[in-house]
């Protein structure tokens, strides 16, 4: 019974943190190259433009939900399952979500990188 809750927490963390990363990435792509923008109109303009983008607060909200899901998950379950499982799965779901929602070209090279890092994270936490 406990493991159902643990995997439920993992699923919640993976879904919300993937949503957060995709929303933040979309927001920053809409803002455009921050370095060029800063040289053109200054740091305040950059900050204003980021804060005005509607995807930015949504991304932060999703990240906050992911963080609280992690806290709840850790209060029920084992840190040695929840942290490595959610961190490594997030690398894989991010690759999928970036392909579907951000139309990034996730080629073989990027898949291999995502899977290697996901595997490495599992080993680090073991």
């Amino acid at each position, binding site marked *: 019974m406990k493991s159902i809750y643990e995997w439920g927490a993992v699923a919640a963390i993976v879904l919300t943190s993937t949503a957060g*990363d*995709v929303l*933040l*990435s979309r927001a*920053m*792509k809409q*803002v*455009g*190259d*921050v*370095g060029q923008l800063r040289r053109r109109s200054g740091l305040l303009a950059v900050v204003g433009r*980021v804060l005005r983008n509607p995807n930015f607060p949504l991304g932060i909200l999703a990240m906050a939900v992911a963080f609280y899901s992690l806290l709840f998950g850790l209060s029920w379950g084992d840190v040695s399952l929840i942290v490595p499982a959610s961190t490594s799965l997030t*690398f894989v779901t*991010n*690759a999928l979500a*970036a*392909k579907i929602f*951000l*139309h*990034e*070209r*996730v*080629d073989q*090279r*990027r898949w*291999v*990188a*995502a*899977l*290697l*890092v996901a*595997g*490495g*994270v*599992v*080993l*680090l936490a*073991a």
Partner: protein
Amino acid sequence: MTFRKYLVLAGVAVFAAVGDCLLSLGMKQVGSISLHRLPEIVLTVLNPTVALGILLLLGFFACYMTALSWADLTYVLPATSVSYILITLIARFFLHETVSLGRWLGVALISIGVGFVTLGPALTPHPRQVESNDALAVQLSSGAEP
């Protein structure tokens, strides 16, 4: 990719790793906080180690947002997973924790993954950018004609 951009990616990894380590160190100095005295958690920011950790994590967030403004999510995430390697090195050489063979193997896998992704392109050309490039090409070609 310019040197400055690699510097931002390094900033993401270093700020995340050192920030997390400082938070962990600071929270151990503060001691455990029980659930029915939860408001005390607000006061933990008065601990200088925790405060410095939070400052570094703000730096991490600024670098991460900057990187996402000119690179793909599927490039930034694997490339900045160098932070896991840094955390392992900090744990081994500064916090004197023992690091098992399995963990070193994990570090090796992540290193290969980082190498793999950083050898490829950082950004997918999207229609808007391609269009502007095409417009530029049209201008150039029409300019070349007499």
